[in-house]
């Protein structure tokens, strides 16, 4: 049996589901903080096998979704700057900004290119020495090492026409902001897999230690997620909140020091604006002064004003776990993946998109 199949084994899944059903936790709300988990949970139908008293909530784990419209509008303005080729991840293109999306900007003849990593953007810069290649860097701790590597490479090679507009964010300040708001009851957290492989599982110790919330770091296979859910329920049942690493085949307690070291060398912490949360101090990554040459915000003079969101869109509440997508009055009607009103319906990791694709008419 292949390694992958082993983690999808249905008899083992059934056994864990039975255990979950047998636990006497009472009503319990478990939140995941990772867009990849949101999708995996929906795809595997985990919500449909949970007993009624277990509520699965999605938090602000989708990097495209938490990008504020103010930041997106800045990317739009950069894309319209003469000589600029704006590069970013594919999911970002369809997100409606205050006035237009990057897709619409591209249709007007401006150059917006989809890349798979910051290094692709750097390659594009080498191929177009007469143009300014700007990378609109969204994402969490997982994408930051590649961004740092690209900047270091650009510096080493003396690339002059490459810069990044960083709106990258850190998950832990985001999680803390959500808990501080106190709008939703969170009894347990499924800790992100890829993010934790970089920052380490120990970074999540604050949950049990400061908030009495059990946390289990999980991988992306259905069995990983079921095991993490069960571990959280057991800790809740026994009233012994702790940190469990159910993804130890990838995640180490200290994370990937080397990768994170590069991030710290290139970036420093700054206030960042999150959709649904507003400004969160020390939650964003901006280029350190010594890398100012690669800072698109300093190289190009763009200012945006009056950023707004669609009045009907409730992505902010969806991202805070206060609202489930079908509770949004335009879900599946005025707002669909083909004509989205907010990023949560566009991004492949957005909650609204996951609901729409996998559970729309299941109720």
């Amino acid at each position, binding site marked *: 049996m292949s390694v992958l199949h082993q983690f999808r084994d249905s008899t083992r899944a059934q056994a864990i*589901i039975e255990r979950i059903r047998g636990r006497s936790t009472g009503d319990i709300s478990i939140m995941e903080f990772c867009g990849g988990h949101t999708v995996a949970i929906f795809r595997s139908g985990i919500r*449909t096998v949970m007993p009624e008293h277990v509520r699965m909530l999605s938090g602000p784990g989708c990097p495209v979704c938490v990008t504020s419209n103010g930041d997106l509008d800045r990317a739009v303005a950069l894309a319209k700057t003469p000589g600029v080729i704006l590069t970013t991840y594919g999911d970002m293109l369809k997100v409606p900004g205050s006035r237009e999306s990057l897709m619409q900007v591209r249709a007007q003849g401006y150059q917006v290119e989809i890349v798979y990593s910051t290094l692709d953007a750097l390659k594009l810069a080498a191929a177009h020495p007469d143009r300014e290649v700007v990378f609109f860097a969204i994402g969490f701790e997982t994408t930051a090492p590649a961004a740092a590597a690209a900047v270091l490479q650009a510096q080493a090679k003396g690339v002059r026409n490459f810069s990044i507009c960083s709106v990258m964010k850190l998950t832990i300040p985001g999680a803390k902001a959500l808990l501080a708001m106190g709008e939703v009851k969170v009894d347990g957290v499924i800790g992100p897999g890829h993010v934790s492989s970089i920052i380490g599982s120990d970074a999540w110790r604050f949950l049990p230690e400061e908030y009495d919330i059990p946390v289990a770091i999980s991988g992306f296979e259905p*069995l990983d997620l079921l095991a993490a859910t069960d571990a959280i329920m057991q800790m809740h049942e026994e009233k012994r909140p702790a940190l469990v690493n159910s993804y130890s085949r990838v995640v180490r307690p200290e994370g990937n020091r080397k990768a994170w070291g590069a991030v710290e060398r290139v970036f420093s912490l700054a206030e960042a604006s999150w959709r649904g949360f507003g400004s969160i101090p020390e939650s964003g990554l901006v280029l350190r002064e010594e890398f100012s040459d690669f800072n698109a915000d300093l190289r190009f003079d763009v200012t945006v004003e009056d950023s707004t969101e669609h009045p009907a869109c409730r992505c902010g509440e969806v991202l805070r776990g206060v609202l489930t997508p079908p509770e949004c009055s335009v879900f599946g009607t005025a707002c669909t993946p083909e004509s989205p009103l907010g990023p949560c319906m566009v991004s492949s990791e957005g909650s609204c998109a996951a609901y729409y694709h996998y559970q729309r008419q299941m109720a």
Partner: protein
Amino acid sequence: MKHSQILLAHGSGGSMMHDLIQELFLPAFDNPFLRQANDQALIDNPGGRIAFTTDSYVVQPVIFPGGSIGELAVHGTINDLAVGGARPLGLSVGMILEEGLDMALLEDIVGRMKNASEEAGVPIVTGDTKVVERGSCDKIFINTSGIGIVPGGIDIDGKNARPGDAVLISGSIGDHGVAVMSERRGVQFSTPVVSDTQPLHQLVKSMFSVTHSIHVMRDPTRGGIATTLNEIAGQSRVGIEIDEEALPISPEVTGACDLLGLDPLYLANEGKLIAIVPEAQADGVLEAMRGRPEGAGACRIGRVVEDRPGIVRMRTGIGGTRIVNVLSGEMLPRIC
């Protein structure tokens, strides 16, 4: 051939075009119909309804593990006829060549088409060639059309699925899509995934030898089985339920999909068919399918149900349920 590259004059109607046809196409595709050398091929009508189909092939890269645009162009059109219950009689081939195309590449592709047509026993009966300026097409585009005859008593239609019917597939899914995507992205796997391109008309013939009451047949090409099943659910106004555990997906395809961020349900297949048959006939049809090499991996993947018409659902490996939606937009890789 005298020239090592395709020149505009190869499509001009003059002597160079004549040479290309006489020296490359005619010897490769040789058959009595083509030898008629008229503006049209005349084919006897053995009786029955005529099935007619066309498809254009623009795949990039033109050569990929397990096949090329040439095999696709022959098999794809044969399969479009076959899944309608038709016995293919002949194909037309229209080629659009880019100026500067490597002659050796064209010869390779033509040779592959010749082999595909001979192995399938379906002649290429008429053809056309055009050459366009460099940059006006990507190396080579091929259009093939095909005609076939549907014998009496066969009624295959996307509208015919009935609650209680079994959903069968002739073999593993996702192979073609992974073969092309991995080539395109320059990814190499230790066990390379090869395209499943193959003709299905003989498989269909042996299925009909068991029963004529096959309700629906489709080849899940672009958009994969998810798209095909959604089309059928919509046309027949029924629900379709598939079992994740039953889906035949090779470990190589699963691994490649995880790596490339692809979903095998949406990947193209070029040598597989989905059949929807009355439950009572399902085992017999499956046995006939497995008796042919093209259907060796045939299995049952689900059933047609009455509730939630138009929706395809999946019983997941862990016993949950989810929708299998049509694809919206391109498939995008994970970013986090």
